[in-house]
């Protein structure tokens, strides 16, 4: 009898499942649906929100497009779920193009693009196209954030009173080495060329937390790293992580009377959390890149590319044309603003190229000989931090 009872329970379970099963398939229409996979929350005031808002803008301005999205795509937030699983879901909802917004999704995007040869893929910040590992339907997109980071380092060094600049770094890879090094070069330029101080007196230290954002119990806690920076006399901290801890802690410390500042990252509205502590924010504007690729895909002209889009030097904050920008923060002084404008002009006309030798790697080996300038390949794949920077390179 017991067995019959259990059998009945089983049958009941199955029939309940069957009652819930099967909705009719979504009707085909002419809408071009694209799916966005974001590594963090869509409202992180950082990396993921910059993507989310750009995609929303595409929906508004490119007629016939519709966005569907999943955020928090990482194994800590979504246990047991992989990128190919999510791509399956987006494709079954009609997505014809998928954007994966994290370096962490590289393997998953590669696998998914193999599984769905008829769907287009944009992998942000990756270089599978460059290295020849990408399927034909996958394209790479990134912004030339080196310029934004140089501006971040520049305003940091001009503002610092202790000459100690902290860099709240995410994980260590070619991208983060590149961007932290660019910030250091900007800081060193301001220190030596504007303030006319010796380079050796500038301290620049990177502390890596281990991932793009805080995962309790897994990464170092960025709030603690920030406090540690400030307690050790670092008075300007440049953030390289996806979220806003650097600015928030700097804002709190200012309320306690400390003279500290931060330079947030990624998102146009990055200063909003604590404007009085914010020197400015280098940010990505994904609209031009998204637009170019999505329109090509809609017209049947999708072409695999390794797109590394720079600022529009006529107006780096033009949302239609400039793929990276820098918005000055409320805490940036008038003098510093003037110097920044000169610096930006120099970067724009090419009279300032900070990736020019003599430059050494952190271990003292030669990166660029005197007068030599780095090419894109050397900058993209920077193997170490630069001489003068503290912090792990690998």
């Amino acid at each position, binding site marked *: 009898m*017991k067995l019959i009872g259990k059998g009945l329970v089983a049958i009941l379970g199955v029939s309940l499942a069957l009652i819930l099963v099967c909705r009719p398939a979504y009707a085909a229409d002419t809408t071009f649906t694209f799916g966005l996979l974001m590594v963090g929350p869509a409202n992180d005031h950082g990396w993921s929100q910059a993507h989310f808002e750009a995609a929303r803008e595409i929906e508004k301005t490119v007629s016939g497009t519709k966005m569907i999205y999943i955020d928090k795509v990482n194994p*800590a937030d979504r*246990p047991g779920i992989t990128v190919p*699983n999510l791509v399956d879901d987006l494709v079954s909802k009609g997505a014809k193009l998928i954007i994966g917004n994290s370096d962490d999704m590289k393997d998953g995007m590669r696998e998914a693009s193999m599984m769905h040869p008829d769907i287009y893929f944009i992998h942000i910040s990756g270089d599978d196209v460059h290295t020849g590992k990408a399927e034909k339907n996958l394209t790479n997109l990134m912004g030339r954030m080196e310029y934004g980071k140089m501006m971040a380092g520049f305003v940091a060094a001009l503002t610092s009173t202790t000459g100690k600049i902290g860099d709240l770094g995410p*994980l260590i890879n070619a991208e983060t080495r590149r961007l932290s090094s660019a910030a250091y070069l900007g800081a060193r330029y301001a220190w030596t060329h504007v303030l006319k101080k010796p380079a050796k007196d500038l301290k620049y230290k990177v502390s890596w937390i*281990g991932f793009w954002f805080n995962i309790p119990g*897994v990464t170092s806690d960025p709030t603690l790293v920030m406090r540690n920076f400030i307690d050790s006399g670092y008075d300007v901290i440049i953030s390289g992580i996806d979220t806003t801890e650097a600015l928030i802690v700097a804002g709190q410390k200012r309320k306690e009377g400390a003279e500290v500042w931060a330079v947030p990252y990624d998102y146009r509205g990055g200063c909003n959390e604590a404007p009085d502590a914010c020197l400015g924010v280098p940010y990505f504007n994904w609209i031009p890149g998204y637009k170019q690729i999505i329109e090509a895909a809609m017209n049947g002209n999708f072409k695999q590319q390794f797109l590394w889009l720079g600022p529009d030097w006529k107006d780096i904050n033009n949302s239609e044309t400039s793929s990276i920008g820098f918005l000055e923060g409320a805490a940036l002084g008038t003098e510093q603003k003037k110097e920044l404008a000169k610096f930006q002009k120099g970067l724009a006309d090419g009279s300032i190229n900070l990736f020019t030798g003599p430059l050494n790697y952190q271990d003292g080996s030669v990166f660029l000989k005197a007068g030599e300038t780095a090419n894109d390949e050397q900058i993209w794949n920077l193997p170490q931090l630069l001489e003068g920077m503290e912090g792990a390179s690998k």
Partner: protein
Amino acid sequence: MNSSRLSTLTTPLLQFFFIAALAFGAVSLLLIALGLSPMAIAESMSAGSISNWMRISHLLSIWTPLLLCASGLLFTFRAGLWNIGIEGQMVMGAIGATAVLRMLNGVAPPGLVIALAMAGGLLGGGMWGMFVGLLRNRGGVNEIFGGLGLNFVAQGIILWLIFGPWKRAGIASMSGTDLLARDLWLSTPPGWRVAPVALGLAAGAFLLTALLLANTRFGLQLKAVGKNQQAARLFGIQPNLVGLTAMMLGGGLAGLAGCLQVTAVYHRLIPSISSGYGYLGLLIVMLAGYRAAAVPFIALFFAALAAGSIQLPIVLQIDSSLSGVIQGACVLSALVVHGLHQQKRSR
């Protein structure tokens, strides 16, 4: 049919209905209070987990480790042990398997390497379970505290390996180790999202567990130890030894689940390799009233919740952590119904 027989048939059924009604009622009320439609959520979650083979097979890929963990827990619960350390055992299984895969990659044929990795998983998890048992037998440390402590140690080891000796060349990231060579992935047929071998292993392990518990002397010994250790001793059973064996078996099965997470799901070692399936396994076995027969169905329900929840942000723009609320409501409902049942019986 006498009345006691009738009650053995109706009680589990009635309980099931009560639990289901209470859980659905509570969740529906909560959703309505939040301004959401329970029907829309049920529809999108069920469509997201069982509307076609690809989705069903994805659901089964979550069911597989859940079933393995729950099977392992059936042994320990039967022996009266709370194996909270199951998460750590799963992690150590994943580490054991990865160690074998890294060592033997290219040295032996891929099929053999994968088989040895599974043995490594069993061994890693089994050993971690054994430590909990030894701490209990020799050190007098309750298995809950021993297990929790060893969970932290396992988490420490996996983080150290990923950020240290096993990190990707030139990269230091908590996102995980390098991807395994393709021939070391458990093979998944086109259009499937679950490796048939993994599915077979989980189903086999479950059947074996049910068989061992119901039809063998060892099963009886476990039951005796779980019910009354003093009485068990009178029958010549050594409770410590039986408990230790249960912990090793439970840990071994959890370790195998960890190995499958590496070889069939993520194809690399990541910090959250256990995905919380160990803790979920505890809930499943408790909800099943510690009976084997109901375990696969409850595990299936939890897998469907996990697989279907991803539809919530896509379709309804609702955070998928809602599925955690539904899970919680089910567990609470079960506890309430079981509690009421116990109260009624004791009167």
